[in-house]
């Protein structure tokens, strides 16, 4: 645990160093690339709460990621076109202000997580995996068949949404906004994990029958974890739309759910910064191997197999072992 905290401090230091490096090297591309890592890391941190700490193997977190992305895209689209979103039962116009968009994303993601959670948490094991996957796929096909917002082609928003008094089109500024959300997601996760609620949901992962026998309502515990998890992932989806200034049904696809799960597994299940490290590793592989072959994910698959067979607790545990050895 002490070594993990030491590693986490280094990761944080490295993240704060990136904008300086980008500025010195005059390579804003690296800032944008790390912004992508941070956003995907936030999505993974969301999933890690449910999967890593509570044992809920959700294969449908793309639903929340995509919802956050589409809510951001749709609000922005209407703001840019000066069109009303709807006029009944109340009048609602779009917005390109992040301070308006984020609360709406948080509320809608929490609501969707609640609906999916209430229905899917009645099942366990493979049925839970399949039902979460089914929900995400339903949203995916709904997005494809919704021509108002680009259908299969997706929705471009041309301008990144605004934040008071700063220029969000500046890569460093947007990076700092995303870094803020990352730190908040880590802070919330850490607080939850160390709370009595965290004790309850971590116990559910290990022995649900025992937790029930001491009078704890495990369904409510799992539902609340699932809602918090989905909400964090939804917020990541919102930032992802702003990063790309584009959202398409691919963010709702099962492949996206799989990728978020890969971040968690690669970095280390039930580790605070694990999904961020996993996302970084994923993007580095994509950027390096992707130069040589389109099918770079073949190598990702190989690495995953080796990791699951030999280093189950993720990339972070490799550093831990090395540090322990050096001590």
């Amino acid at each position, binding site marked *: 645990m002490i070594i993990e905290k030491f590693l986490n401090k280094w990761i944080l230091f490295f993240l704060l160093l990136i904008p300086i490096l980008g500025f010195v090297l005059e390579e804003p591309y690296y800032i944008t690339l790390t912004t992508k890592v941070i956003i995907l890391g936030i999505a993974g941190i969301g999933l890690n709460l449910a999967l890593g700490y509570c044992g809920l193997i959700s294969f449908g977190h793309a639903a929340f990621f995509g919802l956050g992305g589409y809510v951001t895209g749709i609000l922005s689209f209407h703001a840019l076109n000066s069109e009303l979103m709807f006029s009944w039962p109340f009048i609602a116009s779009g917005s390109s202000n992040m301070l308006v968009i984020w609360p709406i994303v948080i509320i809608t993601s929490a609501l969707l997580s609640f609906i999916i959670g209430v229905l899917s948490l009645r099942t366990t094991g493979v049925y839970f995996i399949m039902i979460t996957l089914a929900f995400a796929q339903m949203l995916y096909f709904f997005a494809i068949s919704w021509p108002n917002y680009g259908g299969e082609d997706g929705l471009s928003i041309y301008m990144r949404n605004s934040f008071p008094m700063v220029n969000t089109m500046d890569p460093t500024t947007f990076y700092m906004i995303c870094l803020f959300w990352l730190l908040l997601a880590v802070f919330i996760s850490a607080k939850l994990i160390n709370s*009595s609620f965290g*004790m309850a949901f*971590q116990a559910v992962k290990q022995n649900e029958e025992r937790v*029930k026998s*001491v009078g*704890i309502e495990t369904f409510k*515990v799992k539902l609340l974890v699932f809602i918090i998890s989905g909400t964090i992932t939804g917020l990541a989806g919102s930032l992802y739309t702003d990063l790309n200034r584009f959202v398409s049904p691919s963010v709702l696809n099962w492949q996206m759910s799989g990728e978020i799960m890969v971040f968690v597994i690669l970095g280390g299940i039930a580790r605070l910064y694990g999904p961020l490290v996993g996302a970084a590793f994923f993007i580095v592989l994509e950027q390096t191997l992707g130069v040589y072959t389109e099918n770079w994910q073949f190598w990702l698959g190989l690495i995953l197999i080796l990791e699951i067979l030999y280093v189950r607790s993720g990339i972070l545990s490799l550093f831990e072992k090395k540090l322990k050895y050096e001590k």
Partner: protein
Amino acid sequence: MKNKILNIKSLSKSYGAFKVTDEITIDLHFDEIHALIGPNGAGKSTLIKQIVGSVKHDIGSIILDQEDITDLTDIERAKIGISRTFQVSSIIPQFSAIDNIILSLLDKSNKTFQLFKSVKNNKELYLNAKKILREIELQEKSDVSASDLSHGDRRKLEVGLALAMDPKVFLFDEPMAGLDESGTNMMINLFKKIKSNSPILLIEHDMDAVFALADRVSVINYGKIVATGTVDEIRQNELVRDVYLGYEI
């Protein structure tokens, strides 16, 4: 009726044609340890599962402290005061001994949904948990991971988890299985102490412990209660000697 805290009437459970429990009627008085003995497969553990609500019964009723709890879920029954131990130790393996006890204290202290306050800073929970660890003689191992505890210590921790709930009744399923002599003596003394607050329905194969502890004993065979009485009455009962105790006792 007034001196009965737990009253089970005609409780039955069948799997197909096989009757695991067959119209079992049994009660538990205040200040009492009521032992339930019988051969393996007689239906003792199934009866415990039916009382806690993890196995649904086919017919019958369960009254706890004059309240009909027959239709309550297992969690609701735990909340209103039924606390159990499992036949095979069922603890949270990656938690320390003290964290296992704290988990058991959460619901009673309304802290399960406390989202952001660190549990490590909750002195009240820690003090209560330490008190229970002292009672089960595990205070020296409070920070040891439950998965690293010996079998005997896990049995003690099981009982500690039940104690932490401060229930109306305890249902102990072979709490002394695998304990050494000092562990068994510790349990016997502990049970004698706690029964005045929360009576105990005890399943146990260690007959010396049963005869040292029980105020009443019921014998179950093929899912039916075949005899109920004091220790002496049960010792003298021909049928009981036939089905379970043997003639050498």
